[in-house]
C-alpha cells in the first residue's frame, strides 16, 4: 500500500504539471479587444493571398491581426463570419449569390449588399478581377486558328475539347455553354489537375479553367471571350461584418479595383510555380502598388513551426486531460451498472464513427471556429479508448479479489483507491496512450476550422499541391506522435512499478 500510495502521488503530481503546462500556454479567443481584426481565408491559394494582403495592410495601419487562414470551405468561412469568429474574408459574388444566399438573380455587389444588410454583413468594393470559369486554348493555336471567343469554337469541330468531370456535369458548365453557343462538339472528361499538362503537350486543344489560375500565365494560354455572358461573374471582394471599425474598412477599400485578372494570375503563379510564400508575394505586390511598406517575410519558418507545434500540443493536451478526467470519472461512476456501462461505451463508439472532418464541421454552429470546437472534437474522439479500456479493466477484475475487498471491510472509496484503480491502471494507461496518439493525428484536421496547429502547413500545402509544405506539418506531427509514445513509455515506468507489470505477466502466463 505504501507503493500504491506513491503511485497515486506521482500520478497527481504529473497530471497537475501537465494541467499547469497546458493552461499556461496562451489561450486565445475569449474577450478579444476591439483593435484586433480576425481575418479568415478559404483553403486555396488565391484566398490565402487576398487575406494575407488585407492582413499586411491592416497591420501597417496599426491593427493587430489574427490570421485564421485555410478554413475548410465557403460555408465554414461564412458561418465563422456570421458568428463573429472572424471579421473579414475574401468572397466571390457568384459564390455568394448561388451557394450562400441561394439567389442567382443577385449579381452585382450593390444587389448582394441589399441581401446582406439584414444579416449585418457587407461586401466591400471588389478587388477588380473576375475568377470565373473560362475556356482556354494555347496562345499559339489560338493565333493560328484565329480564335478569340467561345463562339469561334463552332468553326472548328475537329478541336479536341476535354473538360474537367465536374464541368462536364454542371448545368452552368458544358451542357449550358454548348446550348448557349450552339456547340455540337464531342467532349470528354479529364482530371482537372492533368488538363494543363495535356494541353501543353498538345494532346488536347481546349479545356475549362478558372480565369485567374496561375497556370494560364505559365503555360501561355488564352482565355476565349465569353461574348454572350454565359458564365456568372465571380468578382472577389472583402466580405466583412458590418460592425468592422470604420478605419479598418477604409484600409480594406484601398485594395478595391487594384487587382485585374492578369495580375491575379501572375500572383497565383508566383505562389504555385516560384514557390514563394503568401507573405512574400503579398508584400511584393503591396510595395509595388505603394500600398504598404516592405516587411521582412523570411525567417518566419522556424517561428511558425514552433508556434504550430505549441498550438498542436495545446489542442491535444487540453483535449486529452479533459477526456482522461471525464473518461476515468465516468467509468468509475458507472462500472457497477452493466447496462449504463454498455450504453456509454456504445455512445462513445458511435461518436468514433463520425468522420473527423464531419465532426469538426458539426461543431461550428454550436461552438464557432477556432480552438474550442477543435478541442471538443478531439476530446470526444479521445473518450472511447480511455472509457472502454478503463471500464473493461474495472469490470474484469478477479471476482475473488473483489469479494475479499468487501469481506475484509474496505470502504467503497478504499476499494476503488486501493484495489480497483491500481489494478485497472495498466489498461487505463494503454487507453490514454492510444487516445493521445490518435489525437495528435486528428488534430492536424483542426486547421480546417481555424484552430491552427501543425495542420496549418498541411492545409496550405494541400491547397498549393506543395509537398514540402505538407511535410512541414506532417513530419513534426509524426515526430510528436513518436515522442508521445516514448513519453508514455517513461510515464508507465514511473507510475507502474514492478508489481503491476508483474500482473501483466501473470495474465500472459
Amino acid at each position: 500500500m505504501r507503493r500504491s500510495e506513491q503511485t497515486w502521488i506521482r500520478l497527481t503530481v504529473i497530471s497537475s504539471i501537465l494541467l499547469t503546462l497546458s493552461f499556461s500556454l496562451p489561450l486565445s479567443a475569449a474577450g478579444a479587444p476591439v483593435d484586433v481584426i480576425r481575418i479568415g481565408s478559404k483553403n486555396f491559394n488565391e484566398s490565402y493571398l487576398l487575406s494575407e494582403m488585407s492582413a499586411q495592410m491592416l497591420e501597417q495601419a496599426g491593427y493587430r491581426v489574427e490570421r485564421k487562414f485555410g478554413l475548410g470551405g465557403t460555408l465554414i468561412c461564412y458561418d465563422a463570419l456570421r458568428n463573429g469568429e472572424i471579421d473579414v474574408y475574401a468572397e466571390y459574388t457568384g459564390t455568394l449569390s448561388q451557394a450562400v444566399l441561394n439567389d442567382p438573380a443577385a449579381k452585382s455587389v450593390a444587389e448582394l449588399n441589399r441581401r446582406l444588410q439584414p444579416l449585418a454583413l457587407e461586401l466591400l468594393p471588389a478587388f477588380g478581377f473576375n475568377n470565373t470559369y473560362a475556356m482556354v486554348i494555347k496562345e499559339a493555336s489560338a493565333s493560328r486558328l484565329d480564335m478569340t471567343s467561345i463562339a469561334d469554337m463552332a468553326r472548328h469541330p475537329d478541336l479536341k475539347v476535354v473538360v474537367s468531370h465536374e464541368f462536364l456535369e454542371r448545368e452552368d458548365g458544358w451542357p449550358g455553354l454548348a446550348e448557349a453557343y450552339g456547340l455540337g462538339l464531342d467532349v470528354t472528361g479529364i482530371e482537372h489537375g492533368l488538363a494543363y499538362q495535356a494541353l501543353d503537350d498538345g494532346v488536347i486543344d481546349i479545356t475549362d479553367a478558372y480565369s485567374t489560375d496561375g497556370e494560364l500565365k505559365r503555360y501561355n494560354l488564352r482565355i476565349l471571350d465569353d461574348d454572350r455572358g454565359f458564365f456568372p461573374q465571380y468578382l472577389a471582394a472583402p466580405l466583412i461584418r458590418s460592425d468592422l471599425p470604420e478605419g479598418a474598412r477604409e484600409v480594406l477599400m484601398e485594395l478595391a479595383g487594384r487587382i485585374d485578372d492578369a495580375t491575379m494570375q501572375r500572383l497565383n503563379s508566383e505562389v504555385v510555380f516560384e514557390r514563394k510564400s503568401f507573405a512574400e508575394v503579398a508584400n511584393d505586390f503591396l510595395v509595388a502598388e505603394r500600398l504598404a511598406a516592405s516587411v521582412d517575410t523570411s525567417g518566419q519558418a522556424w517561428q511558425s513551426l514552433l508556434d504550430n507545434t505549441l498550438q498542436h500540443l495545446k489542442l491535444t493536451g487540453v483535449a486529452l486531460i479533459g477526456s482522461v478526467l471525464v473518461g476515468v470519472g465516468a467509468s468509475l461512476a458507472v462500472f457497477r451498472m452493466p447496462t449504463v456501462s454498455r450504453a456509454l461505451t456504445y455512445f462513445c463508439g458511435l461518436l468514433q464513427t463520425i468522420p473527423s472532418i464531419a465532426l469538426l464541421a458539426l461543431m461550428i454552429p454550436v461552438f464557432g471556429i477556432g480552438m474550442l470546437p477543435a478541442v471538443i472534437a478531439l476530446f470526444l474522439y479521445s473518450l472511447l479508448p480511455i472509457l472502454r479500456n478503463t471500464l473493461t479493466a474495472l469490470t474484469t477484475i478477479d471476482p475473488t479479489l473483489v469479494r475479499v475487498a468487501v469481506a475484509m471491510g474496505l470502504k467503497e472509496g478504499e476499494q476503488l483507491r486501493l484495489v480497483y484503480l491500481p489494478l485497472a491502471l495498466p489498461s487505463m494507461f494503454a487507453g490514454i496512450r492510444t487516445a493521445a496518439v490518435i489525437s495528435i493525428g486528428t488534430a492536424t484536421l483542426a486547421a480546417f476550422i481555424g484552430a491552427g496547429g501543425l495542420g496549418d502547413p498541411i492545409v496550405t500545402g494541400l491547397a498549393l499541391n506543395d509537398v514540402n509544405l505538407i511535410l512541414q506539418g506532417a513530419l513534426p506531427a509524426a515526430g510528436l506522435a513518436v515522442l508521445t509514445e516514448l513519453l508514455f513509455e517513461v510515464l508507465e515506468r514511473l507510475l507502474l512499478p514492478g508489481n503491476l507489470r508483474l500482473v501483466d505477466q501473470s495474465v500472459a502466463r
Partner: protein
Amino acid sequence: MSHCVEFHGVSKSYISGHKVLDDVTLDLPDGETTAVVGESGSGKTTLLQLVNAVLVPDQGEVRVFDAPIPADLVAHRRSIGYSVQGAGLFPHMTNQENVLLLARLEGWSEQAMIERYQDLREQMGLDADVADRYPQELSGGQQQRIGLCRALMLRPRLLLLDEPFSAIDPITRVGIYERFEEVQRREGVSTLLVTHDIREAMKLARYLVIVRSGKIEQAGPSDQVRHSPATDYVATLLEKQL
C-alpha cells in the same frame, strides 16, 4: 458457554428464486473451531457470508457474539478475519503490504504493525524474505499462509475461512494444519471453517455443522457426529470419506 455465532430461522434465496438456505437455526460455541461441511451448492459459503454481512438474510436473524449485526458494516467486517481458497491476495501489493493493509487503514503505528506482522509471519513459519516480494512469487501454500496472516492482523475474535486449504497439495496441507491449529490456540480466535472435506473438518474442528441443500443435517460436537450420525446422509458421508 457464550455464543459466537447464532442463526435464528435464517432463509436466503438467490434472485432466481432458488432457496440457498432454508430456515436454518444454529448456535456455535465461542473459542472453538467449527467446521461447516457440505457439497458444493449446499449453501455453506452463503452461510459464511451472512456472518460478515456480505449477504443479508431474507428471513430470520444472524447474531455475532450475542449481538445483532451492527449498522456499521465496515467495523463489523474488520472485527472478523476472512480468508478464502487461493488466498485472494492483492497482486499489486507486496506480501507484507497485503498483511498490513487493514492495520494501516486503522491508523496503527508503523512499529506496532511491523511487530504484529513479524509475530504472525513467524507463527506461520514463513521466511523473513517474503515481506518485499509479491504474492505471485510465492507457492500456493505460502500464499495461503500470508492470507491467514492478513486475516489475523487486527486480532479478530472470529475468523471465517472459506475452503482455505482446498487448493493446496496434501503434503503441504498437513504442515499448514499444524501451523494453523497452533496459531488458532495462541490467538484464542473462534473459527468458522467452510469445507467439503470431512477429514479436514474432523482434524481441525471440535464442532461440526453438516449442511445439505440449504438445510442442517446435523450440528454438534465432532465426536458426537462421528459416533452417532443423525441421518443416513451424514452416516454415508462419514463412511465414504473417512
